[in-house]
C-alpha cells in the first residue's frame, strides 16, 4: 500500500507542477497578447480558470496524502492515546464520506448534467471539466484508507504533527 501511495504522490505532484506552470504561461500570454501584440486572446481566461480548478482539486488530494489540511486539534491532543486513535480513524472515515458523497457521486451527477453543455471558447464540454471531482474523490479515498491502516498499525501518529499549514 505504501508503494501505491508513493506512486500516486509522485504522479500527482508531477501533474500539479505541470498545471501550475501552464497556468502562469496562459495568464502571461493573455497580458502579452493584449498589451504587446494588440491581439487580445479570446480563449485564455476560460483556459486559465479550468486549469486552475484542476490544479486546485489535484493539489488538494495531495495535501490529503500529507494530512496537511488545516484542522483544529488542541482538544484531541488533550485526550488519552487510545481515544486519539479512535478519533483519528473516525476523522478519516468522515473524509471518505466527504470524498465519496461530495466529490465522487456529486461530481458524477454534476458531470452528467453538464455533459452536453459546450464551453464558450474551448472545444470541450463543462461535463468533462467536472470529471476532476470524481477523480480527486477516488484519490482522497485511497489516501484516507492508507492513513486508517497506518494509524491502526502505529506507523503514523493519531494526531498529525503541527505544520505551517495556513489558509493565508
Amino acid at each position, binding site marked *: 500500500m505504501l508503494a501505491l501511495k508513493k506512486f500516486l504522490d509522485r504522479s500527482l505532484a508531477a501533474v500539479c507542477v505541470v498545471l501550475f506552470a501552464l497556468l502562469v504561461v496562459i495568464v502571461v500570454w493573455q497580458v502579452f497578447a*493584449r498589451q504587446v501584440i*494588440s*491581439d*487580445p*486572446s*479570446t480563449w485564455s*481566461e*476560460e483556459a486559465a480558470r479550468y486549469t486552475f480548478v484542476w490544479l486546485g482539486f489535484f493539489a488538494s488530494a495531495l495535501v490529503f496524502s500529507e494530512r496537511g489540511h488545516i484542522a483544529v486539534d488542541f482538544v484531541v491532543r488533550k485526550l488519552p492515546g487510545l481515544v486519539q486513535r479512535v478519533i483519528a480513524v473516525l476523522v478519516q472515515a468522515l473524509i471518505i464520506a466527504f470524498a465519496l458523497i461530495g466529490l465522487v457521486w456529486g461530481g458524477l*451527477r*454534476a458531470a452528467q*448534467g*453538464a455533459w*452536453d*453543455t*459546450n*464551453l*464558450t*471558447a474551448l472545444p470541450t464540454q*463543462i461535463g468533462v471539466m467536472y470529471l476532476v471531482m470524481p477523480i480527486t474523490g477516488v484519490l482522497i479515498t485511497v489516501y484516507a484508507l492508507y492513513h486508517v491502516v497506518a494509524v491502526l498499525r502505529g506507523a503514523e501518529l493519531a494526531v498529525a504533527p503541527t505544520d505551517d499549514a495556513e489558509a493565508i
Partner: protein
Amino acid sequence: GGAGTAGGDGGSGTTMRLALNQTEEHPSYTALENFGERFSETTGGRWAIDVFPNETLGAQQEALQLVGDGTVDMAIVSGTQLENLNEDFLVFNLPEVFDSVEHQMSVVHDEKIVGDLYASLEESNGVTVLGGLTQGSRSIYTTSGPVETPADLAGQKLRVQESDLHVAMAEAMGASATPMAFGELYTGLQSGVVDAAENNEVSYFTQKHFEVAPYWSSTNHLVGLDYLVVNTDRLAEMSQEDRAALDAEWTAAHEEHTELWASATEDAIAEAEAGGATFSEVDEEAFSAALEPLADQFIESDTQQTLFDAARAAAE
C-alpha cells in the same frame, strides 16, 4: 423534488423556487415577483413562486442545470446558456436579428415560430422554455469620445463576453475584441485595460460604467434576451387549469416587464446624463452593413435559417 410546501402564505400549495441573476432593483425581479403573487392568487394558493435574486442559487449555467434536475423549479437564463445546449438558440442571439424590443417580444412569444424550439430541451435536459424577458437594445460606450462609424472603433479594445459570436461581432464593428469578466469591467474601463464596452442603458447606469466611459453611441446592434425556463416534470404536475393560469400570468409578466424596462431605460439615460454621460447617434446603416455578414457566417443549419427568416419576416 425541489419544491417545498408554501408555509409563509398560509396555504398548503407548492412553492416553486426561481433563480435570478439580477438584484432586487432590476425590472426582471419586480416583474417576476408580481408574476408569482398573481399566480398564487389565481390558483388560490395551490402554487407560489419564491424568487431568489443575486445568483444566490447559482449563476445561470448552474441554475439551468439545477432546473433540469428539479432541484430548482425555474430560472432566468441568457440565450448563450441555451445555445450551449441547442445551437438553434443562436439565431436570437445574433446582432441585427431584432429591430426593436417590440419586434423581439412579438417573435419570441409567437408559438408558430418558437414552439418547437422551446420544447426542444424537454427530452434531453428536462427543461421547458416558457418565453423571454427583453434585456434591451445594446449599444457601445467608450472612454475617449463618441463613435459614428465602425472606422471610429479601429484600434479600440472593446470588452465582449467570452464567445465566438461576440468576438466576431466586435471585430465586425471594427474594434479589437477583448473578453473580460463583467465584474472586472469597471476597473478595466477606468484604468484603460479596455477602451470600450457594449451593453444596455440600464446596466450602463446601474453598474456606474458611465462614470468611467461617458460616451454612449447608440449602435443598437443587438437586442438582448433572457429566457424563463421551467422544470418539465413540474409543469406536467400542474392541472390544466393551473397551467393555463401560469401561461396567462406569464404573458402579463413579460408585458409588464417590457413596460418596466422602457421606463427603467428612460430613467437610466436621464440619470447617466445628469452624471455627465453624453448619448449620441451613430450611422446605423454603416453598422448594419458591417454586421450583416455575421448571420450568414454563423447560421449553419436549415432550422436556424428557418428561425432567422421567420424572425426577419415579422419585422416587416
